[in-house]
């Protein structure tokens, strides 16, 4: 897990600087949410379980294979292949329309139940997304249908500039499980072991037909919301510094070192591997070809006559083969 957490941070930093160089568009860094993302996905079985991320997690979903990062690089580059995670990778692309993915997760989990597949669906969403009607409708539906879904609220304290105190007056995000008749748990989202534990337990419930669980993983956004954001405008002085004390890359490393499971060499190797991973992803993604007429691909299984005409006209206008 440590290696993947390091990879996530390094990949995030790399994309950040690529954005600064104007090579990609806006990007949401993962700083502070590595333990939540990695600890939870390490509790899953990629052969049967699914992950539906929001938009930060894809940087650290190595549990499901290296393609996830490759595709995320393509996504950041605005290449349509970035949204395509090849079968059988059980991972959805990043979701921008917040909280909609939580309902997709319930439907997907429902299909597993109907088809008798002993898997679970883990869906990530932020503290902010929990305010959308879709989150509540999803939780309520999962309670009624008793489907194998794990709702993971990655509470990083902020929704862009909106603090959790403006997001809800509930005792906690986990407390919202009361509204659905499912268990709700709060866990230290900076501790991958703790996250791994609660998600494993939730997965056991899920695959044994006991239904859904809501998990609130309390972490902190150690960086800006995105490359377009300036947190100094709104984050109270000192809050970030205090949170940095809990940086999972520091604390988990200390834990492992204390138990003799980690050292400077391992750290160096992990950092090299992380750099290599994002290098490969970047190289793969930048090498992807793209015809502009591909614009019409994959809207429907087969284009309508009107789309075919538009494509022909476009090809003629661009002076390319259709």
């Amino acid at each position, binding site marked *: 897990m440590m290696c993947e957490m390091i990879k996530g941070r390094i990949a995030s930093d790399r994309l950040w600087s690529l954005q600064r160089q104007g090579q990609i568009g806006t990007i949401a860094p993962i700083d502070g949410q590595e333990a939540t993302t990695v600890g939870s996905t390490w509790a899953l079985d990629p052969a049967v379980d699914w992950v539906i991320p929001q938009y930060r997690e894809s940087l650290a979903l190595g549990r499901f294979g290296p393609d996830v990062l490759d595709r995320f690089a393509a996504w950041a580059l605005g290449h349509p292949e970035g949204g*395509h995670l090849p079968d059988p990778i059980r991972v959805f692309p990043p979701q921008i*329309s917040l909280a909609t993915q*939580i309902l*997709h997760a319930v*439907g997907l989990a429902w299909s597993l139940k109907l*088809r008798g597949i002993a898997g679970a669906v883990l869906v990530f969403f932020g503290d902010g997304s929990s305010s959308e009607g879709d989150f509540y409708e999803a939780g309520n539906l999962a309670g009624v249908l008793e489907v194998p879904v794990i709702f993971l609220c990655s509470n990083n304290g902020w929704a862009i500039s909106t603090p959790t105190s403006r997001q809800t007056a509930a005792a906690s995000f986990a407390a919202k499980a009361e509204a659905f008749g499912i268990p709700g748990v709060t866990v230290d989202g900076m501790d991958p072991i703790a996250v791994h534990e609660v998600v494993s337990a939730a997965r056991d419930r899920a695959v044994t037909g006991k239904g859904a669980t809501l998990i609130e993983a309390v972490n902190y956004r150690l960086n800006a919301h995105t490359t377009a954001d300036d947190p100094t405008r709104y984050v109270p002085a000192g809050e970030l510094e205090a949170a940095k004390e809990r940086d999972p890359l520091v604390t988990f490393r200390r834990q492992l070192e204390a138990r003799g499971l980690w050292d400077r060499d391992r750290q160096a190797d992990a950092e090299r591997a992380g750099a290599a991973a994002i290098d490969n992803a970047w190289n793969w993604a930048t090498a992807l070809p793209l015809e502009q007429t591909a614009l019409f*691909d994959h809207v429907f*299984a087969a284009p309508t006559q*009107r789309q075919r005409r538009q494509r022909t006209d476009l090809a003629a206008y661009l002076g390319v083969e259709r």
Partner: protein
Amino acid sequence: MSPEPARSTNPASTADPTMTMVSAINDTLRAEMARDERVMVFGEDVALSGGVFRATEGLLEQFGEDRVVDMPLAEAAILGAAAGLAAGGMVPVPEIQFLGFSYQAMHQLAGQIARFRYRTWGRFEMPITIRTPFGGGVRTPELHSDSLEGQLTNIAGLKVVTPATAADAKGLLTEAIRDPDPVVFLEPLRGYRGVKGPVPRGEYRVPFGKARWATAGNDVTIIAWSYQVEVALRAARSLAEQGVEAGVLDLRTLVPLDVEQIVEAVERTGRVVVVEEAVPTGGFAAEIIATINEHAFWSLEAPPVRVSGYDTPYPVGQLEDTYVPDARRIEHAVLALLEVQP
């Protein structure tokens, strides 16, 4: 009320059983669920009660509670779950109890279902058929009668299907359920029991994008869809008595659109009236007129005319009959159009 077989391209023959549109829909759901066990029906009140219009009656008994499901009262949940089910390999046939309540789920319909194949660049297809009643004339409360084709057709990635006969309800619903892409299947409230006709036995599919001549005529072309085809036929019959041969082209599907037959009709008749129940501004009739301008402008002998609702919300019962186009208004528009001299 269904077009005289002779003048119609509807392959149903009088030998076929006569059914109401709602029973044709019910039969088709039954047949498709029997044929493909991935097909699921769910929505508000579709299982235990068989649907507020009885369209899903008997399905629960036949296919069980895993495949015929009463959902909590939440449209976004119904369509959002449909997307997840589709990604998981099922063939969802959700019902939105009335089209006006699809607004509650527009972020899942327009923002997700319509784009899922595109945003995953082909990995996940959405073979979803959203059945939903719409259209006026039956004195419903707010938002039960609104016609939203103008909005739905502007959402790339959705197919919009609008049967006008019992036979087409079967043929197009069969096609919709087997189509690998999301289809909004619009069922006219007035048509459920108000439209009766012969329905072919056994498997019957009507391809998308092929309009149908509900009745032929060379003086003028009336373009309509869904229940307004019935209304247009009434107008055509009354016009026939006055010696005016009005053809009624039933579009059957708005997306994809049968541009060929529209163009052929304009070239042949030169005069067109487009009928819709919706708010005219930004409505689908405008799209048809723009399409005619693009492909058959020089054949126009007079400006194409719209017979629509008005630029107001769908009104209350006492104003409804004025709002919704009727045969007299269509006839009136046709006669005025025929007066126009180039």
